[in-house]
């Protein structure tokens, strides 16, 4: 087996045992990138030189028996909405095509500090707005399971990179499903942590009250290892939670005896793909076999989630994206007065989806509409939060499908924003409630495409999600790396 086919935990073990070097790991992954990236188009920017330096430094320090972090030398890729000092950070937008931040995001600092080589910055939907990575201003990324299909989005580049063995670990951001949906469509594991668990400092904002950073990996253990690195309080993010960070990776391996699991009726809805529904029910049965108690549960306001989300997120986005005005950085159009500079810069620099959301958000906040739209959506958000609070009085974990269908075809929903929005329908209410939510592989569809199951816990209970996921991984037939696109057994012919 090639090094690039291994999980982060396996690589970490081998590195610590000095059976391999970080440079060897680096070489294996970069060769894989050379091989598959021309087909998948994952990276907007590759940072191989600095990654190699990091890997070499890790080897040197390990030779000197310095105590290193277990993930030192394990490569990682990051979505291109994390600020990286001195390295282009584009948000896949023409607006930031040549923008170079003067500082590192908090999570980037952390990766660097422990010596994780950052291989590059992955493609995404422009400003994280989208569910297919087709909204990138630069190129589309393809699903490694089927090159005619989307990898999901907006963290589609990060998900495809992990699924295709280009990196063992990646970071994405999730505002309303942007980690979990691509993880499901690419057959990997992805976590949206509790809102505030990971510092947003240096994450280019889409919708501030919803944005959260999380790991994408081959399995739950790898996700938990990366979460341990990035989680924690940060004074630079006022919404950061001060709670201590537990050792998440210790959760894998614990029993499920007595764990109460609620099967969310709304997330195995009648109009979902029947195979996905069946896969989720089968996984639920597996949990039951392992000692969990399963009951159906309803989150009655789920139906309103999408509407509330598509008012709140665009409203915050419209405000967050106001700063791209052509004055201080980024794209700048010609304008002979300030109004034309602003309007042309924004009209030319933003793509269609971003403009749409700015328009919705501006509309919903504007005089005369605020109460009926934005404020009403915020109240509905309260009702959705209460649904979860109530459910977590009786349940430890809530489960359902991650997506209603497997990966769709490139271009299939590109012209119909509403259809596209619906692909996140299962991912939105958890985001509105701020609770942690994990998508794990739920087997392959008859089409050969991966399916995903979503597990949600009460705030700060990420450990419980890893625990359940690890149990499911153990009783499924194939080891995690074989359930991914690594072998390209699907229709992904390269």
């Amino acid at each position, binding site marked *: 087996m090639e090094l690039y086919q291994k999980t982060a935990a396996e690589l970490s073990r081998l590195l610590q045992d000095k059976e391999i070097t970080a440079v060897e790991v680096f070489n294996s992954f970069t060769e894989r990138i050379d091989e598959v990236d021309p087909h998948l188009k994952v990276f907007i920017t590759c940072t191989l030189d600095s990654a190699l330096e990091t890997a070499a430094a890790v080897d040197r320090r390990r030779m000197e028996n310095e105590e290193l972090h277990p993930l030192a030398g394990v490569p990682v890729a990051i979505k291109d909405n994390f600020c990286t000092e001195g390295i282009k950070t584009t948000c896949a937008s023409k607006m930031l095509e040549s*923008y*170079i931040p*003067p500082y590192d995001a908090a999570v980037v600092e952390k990766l660097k500090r422990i010596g994780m080589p950052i291989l590059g910055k992955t493609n995404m939907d422009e400003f994280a707005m989208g569910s297919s990575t087709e909204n990138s201003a630069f190129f589309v990324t393809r699903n490694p399971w089927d090159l005619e299909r989307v990898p999901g989005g907006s963290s589609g580049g990060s998900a495809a990179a992990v699924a295709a063995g280009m990196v063992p670990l990646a970071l994405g951001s999730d505002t309303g499903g942007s980690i979990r949906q691509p993880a499901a469509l690419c057959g990997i594991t992805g976590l949206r942590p509790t*809102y*505030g668990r990971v510092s947003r400092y240096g994450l280019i904002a889409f919708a501030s*009250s919803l944005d959260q950073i999380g790991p994408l990996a081959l399995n739950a253990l790898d996700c938990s290892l990366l979460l341990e690195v990035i989680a924690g309080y940060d004074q630079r993010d*006022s*919404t950061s*939670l*001060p709670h201590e960070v537990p050792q998440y990776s210790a959760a894998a391996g614990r029993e499920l005896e007595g764990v109460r699991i609620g099967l969310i009726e709304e997330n195995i809805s009648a109009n979902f793909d029947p195979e996905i529904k069946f896969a989720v029910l089968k996984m639920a049965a597996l949990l039951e076999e392992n000692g969990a108690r399963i009951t159906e549960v309803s989150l009655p*306001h789920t*139906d*309103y989630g*999408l509407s509330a989300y*598509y*008012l709140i997120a665009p409203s915050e986005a419209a405000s967050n994206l*106001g700063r791209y005005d*052509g*004055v*201080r*950085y*980024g*794209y*700048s159009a010609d*304008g*002979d*007065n*300030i*109004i*034309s*500079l*602003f*309007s042309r810069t*924004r*009209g030319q620099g*933003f793509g*269609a989806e971003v*403009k*749409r959301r*700015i*328009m*919705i958000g*501006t*509309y919903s906040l*504007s005089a005369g509409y605020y109460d009926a*739209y934005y*404020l*009403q*959506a*915020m*109240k*509905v*958000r*309260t*009702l959705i939060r209460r649904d979860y609070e109530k459910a977590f009085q009786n349940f430890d974990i809530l489960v359902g499908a991650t997506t209603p269908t497997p990966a769709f075809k490139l271009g299939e929903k590109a012209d119909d924003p*509403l259809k596209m*929005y619906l692909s996140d329908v299962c991912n939105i209410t958890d985001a*509105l*409630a*701020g609770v942690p939510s994990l998508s794990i592989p739920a087997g392959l569809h008859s089409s050969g495409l991966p399916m995903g199951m979503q597990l949600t816990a009460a705030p700060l209970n990420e450990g419980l999600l890893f625990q359940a996921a690890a149990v499911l991984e153990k009783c499924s037939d194939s080891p995690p790396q074989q359930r991914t696109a690594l072998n390209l057994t699907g229709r992904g012919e390269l």
Partner: protein
Amino acid sequence: MSDDFIREVEHVARLARLSLSSEEKELMADQLSAILETARKVREIDTVGIEPTAHVFSIPAFLREDVIYPSLPVEKVLQNAPKKMKSYFRVPSITVIEEE
């Protein structure tokens, strides 16, 4: 698409400082009205007495001590500036404030 709604779209685009071509405006009007149609679903629920949620968790606000840290070097401040002059950002005439 009604002229009224096109005018509404134009008004919102102006507020958002987005110049849109006439085709963009047409398409935007169509898509926006469809999206807003869906969004209007939130208005079906009775929310009397329900507080809006602006932040999902209520933790005490962190207050920073009043201490100075070094600012960015001015070259870094200006490194991405589309137009600069001496150590200022340069912008065109600001006499036109409101178009409306």
